């Protein structure tokens, strides 16, 4: 056997040729190893592809185990009555029936949607305004951009505790109201059944505005300057320029900001847990906080897993919906 057919016998009788017949191994064979051109292509047929697959296997196994198997096992427990320790029995859909017949759980579902859509809407509007304001002209805009983006990178738990202090009954806000003579407005903001949700919404919006601002700033760079100037020359005022030139060009950015915002907003946990722990009396409970409470604090792992499954389905629904809506965008 010749040297060229060390790896397989397939190309053993092919004449050794310099430029390889296929383009894939052109790099190696043109590097001046004419004798190994056919060797290269024969190795490539089963050697190199097989190698790729082997190399990826540990990574694939890890992702599969951590993401899919772990989630699947959690989903399985949704159909059991496991308490977190000891034995369990399969109870079918009993946990789900309990969820949909409990007004407290339905209320927490409503809260989840309220916080998600509320914080996304407000965060995006404020983010857009900030992005427009800090797009050009303002001299300190770089420093201001950093300041406005900082809430996004700070730990949500740490900032939530600071907000809790601010909204405390003896905290800065009530003290301020008392000093300016509006003491009758002072209330326990995070423990008032009507105001607790809005207070939490303020904190959630505060943390997500910077993120939306950055996305919109990136989107604004794609707004064509000349078209804006042309519109201005044609007599369009600020609002008309915004409506007909800027906003259409920003549509992809809006889509991205809303998708990311909603998916994140639906599963927010740290700030709510730190601010109110779902109180007062369950007024600010969301599906995420209920999952934690049921599964870990109250030893009802099956019920908590069922809630988690419901939450996952809701998030999936909105993520797919967003994808559909943005894909049908004619500008894309």
């Amino acid at each position, binding site marked *: 056997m010749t040297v060229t057919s060390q790896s397989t016998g397939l190309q053993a009788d092919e004449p050794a040729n310099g430029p390889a017949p296929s383009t894939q191994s052109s790099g190696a064979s043109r590097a001046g190893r004419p004798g190994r051109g056919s060797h290269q292509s024969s190795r490539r047929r089963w050697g190199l592809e097989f190698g790729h697959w082997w190399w990826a296997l540990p990574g694939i196994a890890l992702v599969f185990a951590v993401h899919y198997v772990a989630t699947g096992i959690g989903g399985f427990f949704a159909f059991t009555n496991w308490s*977190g320790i000891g034995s369990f029995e399969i109870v079918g859909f009993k946990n789900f029936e309990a969820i949909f017949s409990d007004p407290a759980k339905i209320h927490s579902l409503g809260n989840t949607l309220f916080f998600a859509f509320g914080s996304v809407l407000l965060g995006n509007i404020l983010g857009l305004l900030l992005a427009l304001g800090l797009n050009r002209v303002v001299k300190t805009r770089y420093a201001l951009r950093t300041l406005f983006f900082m809430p996004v990178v700070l730990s949500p738990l740490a900032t939530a505790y600071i907000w809790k202090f601010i909204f405390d009954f003896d905290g800065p806000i009530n003290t301020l109201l008392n000093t300016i003579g509006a003491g009758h407005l002072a209330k*326990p903001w995070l*423990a008032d059944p009507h105001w607790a949700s809005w207070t939490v919404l303020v904190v959630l919006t505060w943390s997500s505005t910077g993120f939306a601002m950055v996305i919109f700033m990136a989107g604004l760079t794609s707004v064509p300057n000349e078209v804006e100037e042309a519109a201005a020359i044609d007599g369009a005022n600020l609002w008309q320029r915004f409506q007909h030139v800027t906003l259409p060009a920003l549509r992809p950015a809006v889509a991205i900001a809303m998708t990311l915002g909603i998916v994140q907003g639906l599963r927010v946990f740290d700030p709510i847990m730190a601010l*109110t722990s779902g109180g007062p*009396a*369950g*007024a600010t409970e969301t599906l995420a906080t209920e999952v934690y409470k049921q599964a*870990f604090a109250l030893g009802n792992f099956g019920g908590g897993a069922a809630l988690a499954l419901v939450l996952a389905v809701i998030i999936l629904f909105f993520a797919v919906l967003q994808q559909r809506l943005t894909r049908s965008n004619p500008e894309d």
Partner: protein
Amino acid sequence: MTQQRCSAGFRLAALAIPTVAALALTGCGGSSSSASDAENQEFSLTFATSNTVESPYEALAKQYMQEFPDVKITLNPQPNDSYDQVVRTQLQAGNASDVLVTSPGSASGRSILPLVEAGFLEPLSESAAALVPEGSEALFGPDGKVYGLAPEITVVGLVANDTASAAAGVGTFPEDFAGVLEQCGALAADNKSMFAVAGTAAPNTGLLGMQLAATRVYSKDPDWNDKRAAGEVTFAGTEGWQQALEAVVDLKDAGCFQKGAEGAGFDVVTKALVSGNSLAAFIPGPSNKQLKTTADDQDFEVRGLPSEGGAEDDFIYASANYAYSINAASKNKEAAETFLEWLAKPEQTKAFAEIDGALPVTGLEDYDFANSAYKNVADLIMDKKYTPLPNSKWSNAAVYDELGTGVQGLLTGQKTPAQVLEAMDAAWDQ
């Protein structure tokens, strides 16, 4: 070999070697600890801490190590908030400490009965059985076995700041509930409050609810919990419970709680008690010791909440709320059991109770009530006018959670007593 293949090979090696090394080291790290202390008198102890004061668990472990220099105890303190979850996760994963602190009953994540059912605890010897308080045997394990060693008796009533009470003009504590309501009005006018309540902390609001139920449910019917377990009574159907929760609303309307009580946390309660702005709080008896270390010049005492009928009807809760247990999967059971035998001795239980500010589990007849923080409840204890904390016998932790959040709902006006009791019944059957 070409240039490309050389550098590609190096890059691969540069990525692969540290990854493989990291995985190998994690694998090795886990197994080294268990191998070393199999032979020696070494074991680990885990317990919950709520503050920076040295806990009696730590103090006694150190004393044991001093008395027996061969022994090494690894202390694993956990914050109280997450203790239940951490212990359960560790037991489930098999890497829990050899000795752990549990609670008798079935009320919380660290309770003995569910852990025994899952096979995580080891039955203990006669010395532990001798320490089980009378009437609490069922809380320490099924079938007459004992799975926990109780080091102290915790009295749960009110902790009152006597110094501040005198300063606020409340020389003698009101005798009955009507007197309490009257006193609240007078104090509120003075910008003080009778009680400090942490509305956002379910354990505190839960204790408030249970204190009111002490003289309205449990003094009249001590077997109420057993009847509930058998399904003969319900929370919603028991007038005593209805009255207890209506009393929460009465207290609120009379201005007995501090302003902003529904949104307060434990820190507010401590501050209010220490500064004298509130006279009493619904916290466990041993807290008097911790408050004293914060405010040395004030006197904190344990009292019962005055009943509607006056002193003859007073009732209080006293039980062993914590116990040492041995992990069934422990590899150092002999060392752990020797430690528990030592702990069961009267000198140790007395020392434990003294450090923690609680009552000793044995020798109550000789206890010097008159010179302790428990002088006001001495009669109740000696006349056996007490029962274990009710929630330790409830079917699961969700019932007590519903009570705690329900009382917060009563403070904010979101819920009515009937709604709270119905929710508790629904949670019982979960």
